[in-house]
C-alpha cells in the first residue's frame, strides 16, 4: 500500500508538470509545430509576436516536462516533439474511460442485484 502511494504521488507530480506545460496556448502550439522537428528555437520564435528569449523560455518549460527535446540536424539544433510525452496526455483520456467503465460495472451489479423482471 505504501509503495502504491509513492507511485501515485510520483505520477501526480509528472502530470502536474505536463499539465503546467500544456496549460499555455503558445506552448501547445510549439508542441504542434515541433512534431515535424525541422525548426530551431529561432525559427519557432518567428511564428509568435514575442521575443526570442520568451520563446526560448517556453521551449525550456516543454523540455523539462519531457514534451519536446533538442536534436542536432546537420549544423543546426532543432526542437522535436517527444511522442512519449504526448502519450501521457492521451493516457488522461484513458483515466476518463476508467471512470465510466467503473460506473457501467456498478450499473451491471445493480441490475444483477435487482429482483428478476417478470412479464415485462
Amino acid at each position, binding site marked *: *500500500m505504501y509503495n502504491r502511494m509513492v507511485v501515485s504521488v510520483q*505520477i501526480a507530480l509528472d*502530470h502536474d508538470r505536463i499539465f503546467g506545460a500544456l*496549460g499555455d496556448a503558445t506552448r*501547445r502550439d510549439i508542441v504542434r509545430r515541433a512534431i515535424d522537428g525541422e525548426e530551431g528555437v529561432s525559427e519557432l520564435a518567428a511564428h509568435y509576436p514575442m521575443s526570442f528569449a520568451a520563446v526560448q523560455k517556453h521551449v525550456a518549460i516543454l523540455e523539462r516536462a519531457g514534451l519536446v527535446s533538442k536534436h542536432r540536424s546537420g549544423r543546426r539544433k532543432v526542437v522535436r516533439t517527444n511522442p512519449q510525452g504526448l502519450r501521457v496526455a492521451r493516457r*488522461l483520456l*484513458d483515466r*476518463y474511460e476508467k471512470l465510466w467503465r467503473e460506473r*457501467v460495472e456498478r450499473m451491471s451489479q445493480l*441490475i444483477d442485484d435487482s429482483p428478476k423482471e417478470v412479464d415485462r
Partner: protein
Amino acid sequence: MTVTAVRKDPQSRTMTLEAEFEASLERVWQLWADPRQLERWWGPPTYPATVDAHDLRPGGRVEYYMTGPEGDQHRGFWEVDEVEPPHRLVFRDGFANEDRTPNTELPMTTARVTIEEMGGGKTRMSIESEFPTVEAMEQLTAMGMEEGLTQAVGQIDAILAEVPVARRL
C-alpha cells in the same frame, strides 16, 4: 464483459463507451431516471453520491453531492438538455460550490446517452462524453488524478479502520 466498445478521440475531445446489459430497455433507463438507482452507481464506493434534486426534463437539473472518507462533500449537477424516455438523455455535467451555485472555474462535459433494445432480452447503452476544450480535458483528467490519490488514501484509512483500536468515524 459489459463494456463492448470504447472510442477515444483526442481531436474531437470525445470518449464514446458502449455497454450491453442483460436487462430490458426500461430497466436500463431506470438507472438514470430513478435518483435512488442513480446514486448507487454514479460515485465510486469511496465517494458515494446522494442525489437531492432530480428533474429529468429539458431545462431541468439534477443535483448531487459525493461524500468522501473524511466526510468531505463535493457537489455536482447536471443541466438537462434533452430527454426522450426510455431512449435518450443529453446533459451537461458540472461541479458546484457548497451553496449549490455552479463552480465556473471547472469545465462542464456534455454527455449523450442512447439506450436501445437489442432483442433477446438485451439492451445496448452508449455514452458519448465531450469535453468543451482541450484545456477542459486536461483540467478534468488532472482532477481524476487527484481523485485516484484520494482513493489511495481512503484505502489506507479502510485498513486502519480494521485495526482493533477504538476509532470514531
